[in-house]
């Protein structure tokens, strides 16, 4: 294939999809950048495995946070909830000697109960989520200090550590682990199949679809990325337990948000609560369960985090809420609610994770890391909003939404479809 058609195909694929693919491309650029800056250290099998382990709890939180933000709310308490549930889990494991299979459901229930408490105030009492969860941030940090008595609890039993740092049993052939390779092949096949079916549907319905070249380019890129990632895992120590957990969570939540009425109701509630309510959606119940879910995921992240450190500390989870919120917004959430995807949150969390990891490898101080991450968050959201404003059809047609000068796009905005 020669260059010009390829470039043309790429342009076609990108046109109008900047929002959808922008963050994936940004992630790719960041990966390549740090691969160069770190002299190839970033994508070494050891480091890829580490990336996954280091970011597992942020990924878990980002999924829940994305749903909270889609509903039009925010949750500032997740860091404290991570600390609190992590502390109680550690106490149950290390001091009471309960087995992991008993502690895991208890921790999830505790997190869900915390989420229900906050969801009650937000959804049923109508308090702003910002206030309720700010209160929760203080309350649960305080409770963490209380139950830990200001000290750390640990070490944790082996079973718990496996959850965060262990690997699945595997078969090795010449130093290569087979499980991640098999799983990677399956995941790549499923992803390509989903993309293929979506495009076929669009064509069948006469909707605009990507050109064959662009489509196949997309399939190839998807499969290559998945296989490369799994290949790296295979060359190190195989599939981490937490990797499998994440795969299940991401797949499950992506499916719920994309393909079930429940997911659609979350989007509707965030998009226009009143309209959703008048269409028969139980908006309060929806928001309530989104917070319950966030609580449960926080508890899971708390357990994973404690297990990874092998220790529950009073300061655990500090600033995690901001990492999760940043991941959601980098991944395409809108502050006004109603938009965002689970995969977007994953991409957002990976952008943050790769930057953290890459900047640490090249020895950049925490001072610079913070500042750069802040700027990237700002740039991502600015890019998102500006590209939305310029996107074809993004300008409102004449006769509609008139009279709001601040919303009027600058000159040169594409004409709306009118009618």
């Amino acid at each position, binding site marked *: 294939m020669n260059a010009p058609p390829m470039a043309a195909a790429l342009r076609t694929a990108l046109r109008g999809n900047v929002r959808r693919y922008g963050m994936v491309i940004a992630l790719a650029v960041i990966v390549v950048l740090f691969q160069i800056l770190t002299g190839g250290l970033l994508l070494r099998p050891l480091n890829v495995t580490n990336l996954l382990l280091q970011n597992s709890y942020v990924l878990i939180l980002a999924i829940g946070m994305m749903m909270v933000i889609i509903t039009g709310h925010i949750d500032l308490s997740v860091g404290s909830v991570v600390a609190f549930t992590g502390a109680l889990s550690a106490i149950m494991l290390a001091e009471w000697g309960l087995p992991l299979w008993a502690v895991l459901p208890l921790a999830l229930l505790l997190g869900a109960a915390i989420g229900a408490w906050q969801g009650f105030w937000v959804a049923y009492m109508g308090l702003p989520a910002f206030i309720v969860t700010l209160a929760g941030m203080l309350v649960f940090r305080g409770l963490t200090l209380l139950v830990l008595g200001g000290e750390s609890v640990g070490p944790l039993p082996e079973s718990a550590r496996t959850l965060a740092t262990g690997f699945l049993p595997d078969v090795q052939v010449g130093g290569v682990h087979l499980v991640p390779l098999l799983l990677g092949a399956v995941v790549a096949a499923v992803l390509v199949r989903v993309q293929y079916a979506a495009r076929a549907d669009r064509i069948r319905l006469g909707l605009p679809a990507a050109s064959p070249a662009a489509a196949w380019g997309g399939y190839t890129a998807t499969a290559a990325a998945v296989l490369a990632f799994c290949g790296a895992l295979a060359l190190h120590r195989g599939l981490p337990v937490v990797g499998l957990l994440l795969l299940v969570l991401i797949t499950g939540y992506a499916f719920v948000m994309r393909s079930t*009425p429940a997911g659609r109701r979350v989007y509707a509630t965030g998009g226009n609560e009143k*309209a959703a309510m008048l269409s028969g959606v139980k908006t309060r119940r929806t928001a309530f369960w989104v917070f319950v879910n966030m609580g449960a995921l926080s508890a899971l992240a708390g357990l994973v985090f404690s297990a990874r450190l092998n220790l529950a500390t009073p300061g655990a989870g500090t600033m995690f809420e901001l990492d999760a919120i940043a991941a959601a917004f980098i991944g395409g959430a809108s502050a006004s609610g109603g938009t965002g995807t689970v995969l977007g949150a994953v991409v957002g969390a990976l952008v943050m994770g790769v930057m953290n990891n890459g900047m640490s490898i090249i020895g950049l101080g925490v001072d610079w890391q913070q500042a750069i991450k802040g700027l990237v968050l700002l740039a991502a959201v600015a890019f998102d909003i500006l590209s939305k404003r310029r996107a074809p059809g993004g300008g409102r047609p*004449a006769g509609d939404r008139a009279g709001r000068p601040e919303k009027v796009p600058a000159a040169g905005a594409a004409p709306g479809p009118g*009618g």
Partner: protein
Amino acid sequence: MSGGPPVLRMRGVRKEFPGAVALDVGEAEIHALTGENGAGKSTLVKVLSGVHPHGSYTGEVLVDGEPRRFTGTADSERAGIAIIHQELALVPQLTVAENVFLGNERVRGRGPLARVDWGRTTVEARRLLARVGLDADPSAPVSELGVGHRQLVEIAKAVAKPVRVLILDEPTSALNEEESANLLRLLLEFKERGISSILISHRLNEVVRVADRVTVLRDGRSVETLDAARGEVDEERIIRGMVGRDLEHRYPPRTGEVGEIRFEVRDWTVDRPDRRRAVDGASLTVRRGEIVGLAGLMGAGRTEFAMNLFGRCYGRYVRGTLHKDGREVRLRDPGEAVAAGIAYVPEDRKELGLLLDAPIRDNLTLAALDRVGRRGVLDAAREAVAAEELRTRMRVKCRDVAQAVGELSGGNQQKVVLGRWVFARPDLLVLDEPTRGVDVGAKYEIYQAVRELAAEGAGVLLISSELPELLGMCDRIHTMCEGRVTGCLPASRADQESLMRLMTRTAGAPPGTTERRAG
């Protein structure tokens, strides 16, 4: 209507559309601008106000014969052009006086030392309010005023500056009959004082009543200018210009049969959140395939009645029963109402009806997601097919069903809201002002969709402030006044006068506010 040169003239103005606009507004003239949604009225207003700056369009804007190049709203204001926007641009938390002088504060001192002169602000605000006929406390927050009064505050704000041409974009669409009449009277007063107005309105009866000339826009082109002095201004004539053809019937013919009673409401009583009575013992019936009208002035309690009936989503339910097919049903939230086969299309489609950033498809299927899925899983292909069918049936003009609904014009947005309920196949469809702010062509298509639903056996309760619409569409019309149902007439025996009498049948007050249509 004077012999002088036009105060404001647009020549060959062209933006977004292939056609060009020419417009002359004379000294002390009320010049109406009509056209379907998307015909280019709002674009034209933005050119005149400088929101679309010079250079983003071709053609010329002249004030007193001098070409002007507005680069922002400040420029157009200096030239004496003021705009009253469709969606009011007031700050609700600020007082009336503060709003009137917003960005134009009455100050003492100059430059950085200037501070607000509260004495002058209040005194002058009171004078301006008197000028627009608004009896309101200048120190009250705007949030305490109703929409009609807010409109007047907006006008006071405009005339606080030396204004020569006032542009009003759909000023009466949110007003009731009396408030609209007041507003139009105000325009006539301004005309006496030499202030010209450009009136953009879908309410053609108002245009006919006050306009000296009417310019009709179609597809971004000024098609013709009609002169009232030459007797050219009448509704049929304007409509012909707007749609580019004779619209023989404004209402589609009746089809289908009216059957047995499906819904019966008895003694429905609702309190407002502040405990004042909103609806007082309303009773009515809707039969299978019947379109029942609900007429009333603003504040009569029609919307409150409909929203409370629809799963108590407004106010406080006091008493009353709802029977479906003879059996009583209790609806505690909108979800239960939907499950019972009731649909409510709200008046404010942007606030209450649509997920503006979501695709048309998601908006269409929202109320009946179980119909595009299997065992709790949505089927994307089935959903797309269903949305496509609805789009065709409702004649929604859009790129494709994946387009965000916020990008559509008002009429097409309304078709999407209606389409959502068509898809849910309701037994009772409650429509609240379904054609407000919708142009003539889209109106007809909405009427057709309603007729089709009725022909399929649904009962329809149509709330409307436009009496011709009720007379043209309904089988029977109930009237409401001050929360009570004051009468019921078969449409065949009703006319605007008889309805208006029933709509104003308050306890004691004579029905004297009836207005005859001009033209």
